Structures are given as C-alpha cells and as structure tokens.
C-alpha cells in the first residue's frame, strides 16, 4: 500500500492542477504528455512485458484517430468514439498479429514497419478521408481545454491501471515467460501465439484510444502525422528511455518525451530526434533498464554503501 502512495499523490496533484493558475500552454503540454504516456504504457505491454518489439504502432494510433474523427463528423458523441477507436485498433492488431507473430524476433519487428508504412500510403490515397491533405473534424460545441485535459488524464490513468493489472495477473506471468524464453514457455504450458495476440490487442486498444483522444483535441489530422514512421518511433522511444518491462518506466519516459517534445520541437526540430538517438544508444550500451534501471542501480549502490559502513555497536 505504501508503494502506491507516490503515484496516487501524483494523480491527485494532476487532478487539481488545472484549478490553479496554469496557463493554457502548460495545460496543452500536460494533455499531450497524457496522450503520450497512454501510448507508451500501451506499447510496453507488448514490447516490454512480452518482449515483442513493434516498430509500427503508429498504425493503431492513426486508426484510432481517424475512427474518432470520422465518428464525430458523423454525429457520434466523442466519448462513444473512443471505445470504438480502441476496438478498431484491437481488431487491426489481430489482422497484423495473426500472420506476423509466427515470425522470429527481428522478422516481426521488420514486418511491423512494413505494415505501418503500407497503411500510411493507403490512407494518403484514400479520398474518403481527405487523402494527403488531411481530415478536419467539425464539432458544434465550443472547445474546452479543461475537458480535454481530464480526458487525457483519465486515459493515461486507465492505461497505467491496465498495465498494473496485466503485470500482476496470470496473463502477465505468461508474457514474462514468453519474453524470457518463448520455447521454454510453450514447453511448460503457455500458448505463446494466443498470448502475444492478446498483449498486442490490449496495447493496440490503448494506443487507438490515445489516437482518438488526440484527434478530437487537434481537430485536424493527416496521414503523415498520425501514421508516419516518426510517430511509431516516438511511441517506442518513451518506454525504452524510461525503462521497458516496468510499470513506471513508460510513464517516466512519456513525461520526459512530452516535455522535451514541446520545448524542443518548435525551436530545434532536428535536435530532439538526435538527442533521442544518442539517448537510446547510451541506454542500450550502459543501462538497458533506462531511467528506472539507473534509479535501481543508484539505490543498490546506496544500499551497499550503507551496509559497508555499518558498524556493530
């Protein structure tokens, strides 16, 4: 229970933050961070917990975004489109996963790039949704930033909750086994194919919802932005930086990413990707556990020093 205190505290703080004197720009940054965290946590369920690295999660983000966008324009309540966006993404994940999860590690990763890019090209040519010039959402209600803020916060919290539930469940144990040694897992009764599909669907659903939430906020989406490879890159960078295969890693990564994105993108567009590249390389070379790994290492070091300096009385 004690361990739940800091995150709950954070949640509380974030919940009451808008009531203070926060400027609209800060609210925007936080909102975008919430959306980023949702995708980061979602991706990690497949990429971190199950060890299946996908380079093509933009597919689900984009599908979610367009589902919500089209839905709202057709008169559907936005909040009804979000579950729909999740469902569309989850179904898509099955279509992607059914053929590709039969493949070994890197082949799967490569296949996901292929799927994502193909979808982007198709969406760029689809007249119905505006093609390359993008798609505009027209809502007949006034734009209320606070509403989006809380929707984002709710989504991110949901994602983290799902992540915790999966991790503690039998399903999560099976995913860990698959990540450690898929063959041994199968030899002991885990159904790797079904479990990977399951993790993929959960991850896609969260990512799709995030896409939908974002779409409503932005009121304008285009294939390059939501389906593009840079989007997939961004989604997977967050958990890698924060610490894959943990609960808080993707959240931290999302936070770092969200803040950096807003600060750097406008001023130094190429610098932030360069920074990420260097960060990823440093992480892989020196601390594959990401920020969380660093923190754990620091804690172990501090503990060792404490033990070493302990004097019997």
């Amino acid at each position, binding site marked *: 229970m004690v361990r739940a205190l800091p995150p709950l505290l954070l949640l509380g703080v974030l919940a009451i933050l808008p009531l203070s004197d926060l400027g609209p720009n800060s609210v925007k940054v936080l909102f975008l961070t919430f959306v980023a965290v949702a995708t980061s946590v979602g991706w990690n369920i497949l990429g971190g917990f199950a060890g299946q690295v996908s380079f093509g999660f933009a597919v689900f983000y984009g599908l979610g975004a367009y589902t919500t966008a089209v839905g709202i324009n057709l008169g559907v309540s936005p909040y009804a489109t979000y579950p729909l966006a999740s469902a569309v993404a989850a179904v898509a994940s099955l279509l992607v996963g059914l053929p590709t999860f039969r493949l070994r590690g890197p082949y799967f990763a490569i296949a996901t790039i292929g799927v994502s890019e193909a979808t982007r090209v198709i969406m760029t040519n689809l007249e119905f949704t505006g093609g390359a010039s993008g798609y505009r959402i027209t809502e007949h209600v006034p734009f209320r930033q606070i509403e989006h803020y809380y929707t984002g916060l709710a989504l991110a919290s949901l994602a983290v909750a799902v992540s915790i539930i999966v991790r503690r469940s039998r399903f999560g*144990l099976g995913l860990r086994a698959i990540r*450690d040694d898929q063959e041994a*897992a*199968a*030899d002991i009764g885990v159904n790797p194919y079904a479990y990977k599909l399951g993790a993929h669907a959960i991850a896609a659903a969260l990512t799709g919802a995030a896409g939908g939430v974002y779409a409503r906020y932005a009121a304008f989406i285009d294939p390059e932005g939501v389906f593009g490879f840079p989007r997939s890159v961004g989604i997977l960078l967050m958990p890698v930086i924060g610490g894959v295969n943990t609960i808080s890693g993707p959240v931290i990564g999302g936070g770092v990413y969200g803040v950096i994105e807003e600060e750097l993108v406008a001023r130094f567009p190429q610098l932030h990707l360069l920074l990420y590249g260097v960060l990823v390389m440093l992480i892989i070379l020196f601390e594959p556990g990401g920020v969380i790994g660093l923190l754990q290492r620091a804690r172990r070091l501090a503990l060792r020093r404490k033990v070493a300096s302990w004097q019997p009385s």
Partner: protein
Amino acid sequence: MATLLSVEDLTKYFSGLVALDRVSFEIREGEIVGLIGPNGAGKTTLFSIIAGSQAPTSGKISFEGRDFTRVKPFRAVHEGIARTHQIPKPFLSMTVHENVEVGLRFGRDRRARNLENEALEILELVGIPSLARMPAAALSVGDLKRLELARTLAARPRLLLCDEVCAGLTESEMQSILGLLRRIQALGTTVIYVEHNLRAIVSTCHHVIVLNFGKKLAEGPPEKMQNDPAVIEAYIGKKT
C-alpha cells in the same frame, strides 16, 4: 497396467539425415522407463516429437488412447506430457519460486489455488527449498537442473520426459536425483528418462529402450539389456 503412451513407426528426417527410423514402443502407466543409446541416437529428437515441439515426418503417437501425433507443446502439457531440457532453460528474469509458479499456473492443473505452498512443496521435493527467493540467473548448474525438474513437475504431468537429468552430476548428486525420480514415480507419474549411465538405469528402471542411429535396437528389462550383445556393441564396440 494400462498403456499410457504408444509410439508407432515414428520417423523423422532432417536435411537428408534420418534422425528416427520407424521407432515403435509402448509405455505402461506407472513405470520408470530408461531411454539409452549413444550420442546422436535420436533420443532428444524423440522427446521433442512426443512433447510436441517438433513434428514427425511420419508415424503415429497415442497418449491415453487419443491421437497425439501433432500437438502443440502447450497442448501436450495441458493433456499431461511435460519434458525437461537437456540444457536447462530457466526464466532468467524470475526467481526460483516464480519459475515454479509458471509451471503451476500453466500446467495441467490451472485452477486458482494456494500457489505459495505448492511451489515450496515442489522445491522441497527436488531439494532446493532454500533457494526459493533467489533469482534464477544466480543459480549453479546443478541447481538449475533441479529447478528445471521442479518447474516441469509443477505442471503435474502424467508422463514426465527427463532429458539427461544426470549429466554432469557427481555420484551422490546422481543418486539423489534417481531417488527423486523414484519418489515421483511412486506419486503416480510415469517417467521416461534419458541416461548414459548403465548402473543408474539398472537401479531405477523397470524397462529399457535402446536406440542407435535412430532405430530401436532393443527393448526389455534392464538386466537383459545389460547382457544383450547388440547393445554392448553399440556402446563399446564389437568384441574382437
């Protein structure tokens, strides 16, 4: 005793090499069966096929009367066949206890129950209860073999396939493992195990199957196998 497993004309080709050549035998419930043969005779391949991680080129397998020729490994476990690996494959990110837990939760009996106690019971059976909280990555080779066995037992198999569980162990370690196998059999599990040490075979098995170059060379009680000239020739060479 009822026939638990029946293998008919099992054949496996690998890139032009014949790994198994029309092997046939039956395993009766409650026995400890030894599977012996020189290296490369096809023993591990046979295990892989029975447990489902490989498909045979031709032939038939029946388990408890049902067709078991091409099952997926996880299905085989759910139905009651589980195997250990020649080189242990522990889940390295987990503790010893968590490894066993995987076997408990995904094996033949997947109901929710008191896992903590059951895991400890199994660890006691194999002799490593004190290692429960250790990360699997920190274990010695001998302990890893025990963990492998513990995890497989946790899946509650009716038929346990043990692949060279004694390899690399000292005499006393081997005796304790053999005692363990006898205890497992007494608890109701049928065991097939691969072994090179003929003394171990004689002291534990009711029945022995001898493989060589993928063919079944001989089959019968251990004493008879010890004196069978073909078996001796396969292991030691022709008497000149």
